[in-house]
């Protein structure tokens, strides 16, 4: 999974030559094989490295505070979102929903790497939500829809329909 995310990220960043990856251990932690440097281990580490390689450091946040916020959510992604227990899903969605209430992106008004990786990580959860739940976590849904339509981000994931446009008209009762 992580490898596909990184491949999608490479495409998004427009990196020309694809990097070589492998995985490590049970949890398939991604490893970036570097020809002239030691390999890099870990999704966030590699993703940040790719962003810098593509000279798109604005995606890591502009200024120390914004960088901290971006890092905060990247860390959240790999510590809280990855390997979450089923009963944590509600808390995750509730917290994110509250957080995103007054924000366009995770780092406020700036689209960053945090949005990309959180989107990849949360996709399976959103995919499983019922329409009512999507409505309940409206801010998450809005953010999610926003990111999945952000040009070039989606790649390996299927789009999730977030609007409740029924094809059915309710039958007479």
């Amino acid at each position: 999974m992580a490898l596909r995310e990184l491949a999608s990220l490479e495409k998004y960043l427009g990196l020309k030559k694809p990097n070589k990856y492998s995985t490590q251990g049970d949890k398939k932690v991604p490893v970036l094989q570097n020809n002239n440097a030691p390999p890099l281990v870990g999704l966030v580490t590699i993703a940040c490295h790719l962003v810098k390689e593509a000279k798109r450091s604005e995606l890591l946040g502009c200024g120390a505070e914004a960088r901290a916020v971006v890092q905060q959510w990247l860390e959240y992604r790999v510590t809280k979102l990855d390997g979450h227990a089923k009963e944590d899903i509600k808390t995750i969605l509730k917290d994110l929903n509250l957080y995103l209430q007054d924000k366009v992106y995770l780092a406020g008004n700036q689209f960053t790497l945090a949005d990309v990786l959180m989107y990849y990580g949360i996709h399976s959860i959103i995919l499983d939500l019922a329409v009512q739940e999507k409505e309940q976590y409206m801010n998450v849904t809005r953010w999610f829809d926003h990111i999945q339509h952000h040009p070039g981000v989606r790649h390996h994931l299927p789009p999730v329909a977030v609007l409740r446009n029924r094809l059915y008209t309710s039958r007479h009762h």
Partner: protein
Amino acid sequence: MMELFVSEGNPHCLKVLAALEVTGVQCGVHFINHEEKVVPFLSRPALPALLLPSKQHIFSSNTICRYLFELNGPESSDQCNQWLEWEATVLQPALLRALHMAVLQGKGSEVSKVLQSPLNVLDQSLGKGNMSYLTGKDVSVADIVLWGALHPVLFNSSLALSDHKFVKAWFDRVAAMSGCQSAAQKVLQGKGLEAMKSYMQRQPAPQSRDTQPCNSSPVESEEGERVVSEEEMEAAALTWRKDINACSQTTEKQHPIMPKEGMRNVLITSALPYVNNVPHLGNIIGCVLSADVFSRYGRLRGWNVLFVCGTDEYGTATENKAREEGLTPKQICDKYHAVHSSIYRWFQIDFDFFGRTTTEKQTEIAQDIFWRLQKNGFLVEDTVEQLRCENCQRFLADRFVEGICPHCSYPEARGDQCDKCGRLINAVELREPQCKVCKQTPVIRSSKHLFLDLPKLETQLEQWLEKSTSSGDWTANAKQITRSWLRDGLKPRCITRDLQWGTPVPHPDFKEKVFYVWFDAPIGYLSITANYTSDWEKWWKNPHQVELYNFMAKDNVPFHSVVFPCSLLGAQDNYTLVNHLVATEYLNYEDTKFSKSRGVGVFGDMAKDTGIPSDVWRFYLLYVRPEGQDSAFSWADMALKNNSELLNNLGNFINRAGMFVTKFFGGCVPEMELQQEDKKLLAVVGWELQQYIQLMDKVKIRDALKHILNISRHGNQYIQVNEPWKKIKGGESERRRAGTVTGVSVNISCLLSVMLLPYMPAVSQTIRDQLNAPQSCINTMLLGPGSFVCALRAGHRIGTVSPLFQKLEADQIEALKKRFGGQQPEDEPSNKKITASSQQPAVVPAPPAVAEVKTGVGADPEKAKQLAKAVAEQGDKVRALKSQKAEKDVIAAEVSKLLDLKKQLALAEGKSPEPAAQKGKKK
């Protein structure tokens, strides 16, 4: 100014306090309780937390440390980042377990075992470079973070670090820094592990899922391929050699189909489509198509299947439609019944009988059930307050009243149900009710009606439900909706109405009335069967021999799981009740609201005009079948699935296999000598076949389809690896190998044709025609747990092979998308959203205000939506005026308003406005 919030005894706070001391950053520090909430948006307390000058919160210790270091220094390096990520994802889970044991369970001795593997990693890395610190000669944020994490377990001499001498040297070096010492003192107060007790008690118990040792050397690994055992391969090869079942010849159905002793007798119904409209894709996938796939599958499984359906024709909606079109209700029903029939024929829905509810049999059976309920005391009389529109001179059916929902205040609730909160409503409970036709306020009138006494039947119902839901295959949504109905408590339900177009109530006191459609319509299943065979009771009063499957969309569940079963239970005539209730979720249409009035969306009669074959429609609808969750129809996705799955995967495989036989072996299946690799493929294919059967038996139609596509993917891979087109030019043994690969592949095609039959009946037959495959192979492979046999033996002559699918071109799809009004989610609307939202700092989605209509430039979907609604309402108004024979100039004024609205709608949709008036009679 920044503020840092920490708590005593919290090991995560060690790092941040140390980082603060080491970097010398100015920051207010507050010691608070573990449970105190600092970060407003987190539901669980999270400390340490840093409040930035910009008033944003950072709530994890590593990010805080890193920020503190970056304030005065350079950005942290890749190496540093890697250690921080490792600490958070690998070391912390192990530490949490270690601390849990040491602090709460007193098992300090276990700690070294738990930490063994991460400490090895650390030791190796420190030893390799012979470095003083983790990333080089100088202290970095990584050293502080790892020291802080390890301090609680390492400072205590009880954990021997003798195996990890590099770790020990490094740890002592960092621990000697004055900043670290002072931080340790502040957090642990010299009390050691004991200091962390109250903190640890508040942490959730660690999960044991990461007990696997962390592998320090990167290992190449492929994404999950199933391991096939030796035994599986041998078993698959054995099955392969079995004979195909020549004896079962009964593929032809013989009508009337009747339950048979010793067979699995399966009665399948699809929710009866309402006759006053053309069905759309949602109706088709939700009921008839799903039921069709399952009944075709059932026949392949050797079950004795009867599949019935028909149009539901009584009710106000029909009466109204008739008024609109100037026809009688009967004429309307005839007209639309024919429309429905022809659409389903085009979709190849193989009903055993497609009937209708307006028949003699319906009257007979409905009245019989009524009298039985009456006799058994399950009917009660009551006076009902009903809404009557004095202007239109009639009682208003529920769906002809709109008003404010009494539960959730949704302004457009219908008289029977609120679309927003989903609750059922009594029309008289609506606040500010309006007649939908003329917009007048209706008055309340009372009238005597009969009610089905559901509370009296509740116990019986629950006993039956308990049995049916536990032994049958009810979809999760069906069970859940039913449960919630029972939880809310059952109330008596009115079964009569003041209408003409319906089954007459036979009771002399209720002569002027007809049965309410919800009571009447499900009885249609019985009467339609009765029109098919006079022995209908052998299906419907035979619960011991017959298993009943009901297919529907989820909004129909309560009527099939609660209300109709109550009618039948109360009638006490040994009726066959539903065993398996299969309900789909909703199918959405692109990102645009589906709307009949705007012509947005695909209706059954339009599907064939697209030029896309019926089988491909079936395939895509089943591929996105809203099974377990909502899904969406999208043109672009349909093209993608056609081109990638049907054309490049399935079609490509079947065509290649057939072409190899034709080109390399003169049209005769070559000899096959199975090698290990071939047996492995047989086992893999056999496994996919078993999965398919298990899923289909549980009516997981969409999930099962994926396994068909997996098989052709395996097949393509097999051909690609073995390259028969090269081997055929090689020596004798290579040519034989090419023969085996070709023979196995063409037999997989044969299996695929059988598995595809329920989904794509025409394509399935075409494949068998091309392969000249014996019909008997159909009956063999899907019996029992499923067996992949060699149906096309060496020497079998195949027919003419040709491509099965055509590419859907982008411009073709683009044209269809335009024609049916759907919008591409990737297009302007979303971009527009992005720019709109980035201009404002805070975006709280708010419903767009219903602004005055302005003639804008370019498409505006939001405006279009509002206008479409306005057009629909104005249209209703005009029709109502016409039907009431209102003054000519009054009508003319309203018509011109309508035309104006339509013009604006066209503009908002980005079309050039055209005169819509002189188009002849439009429905």
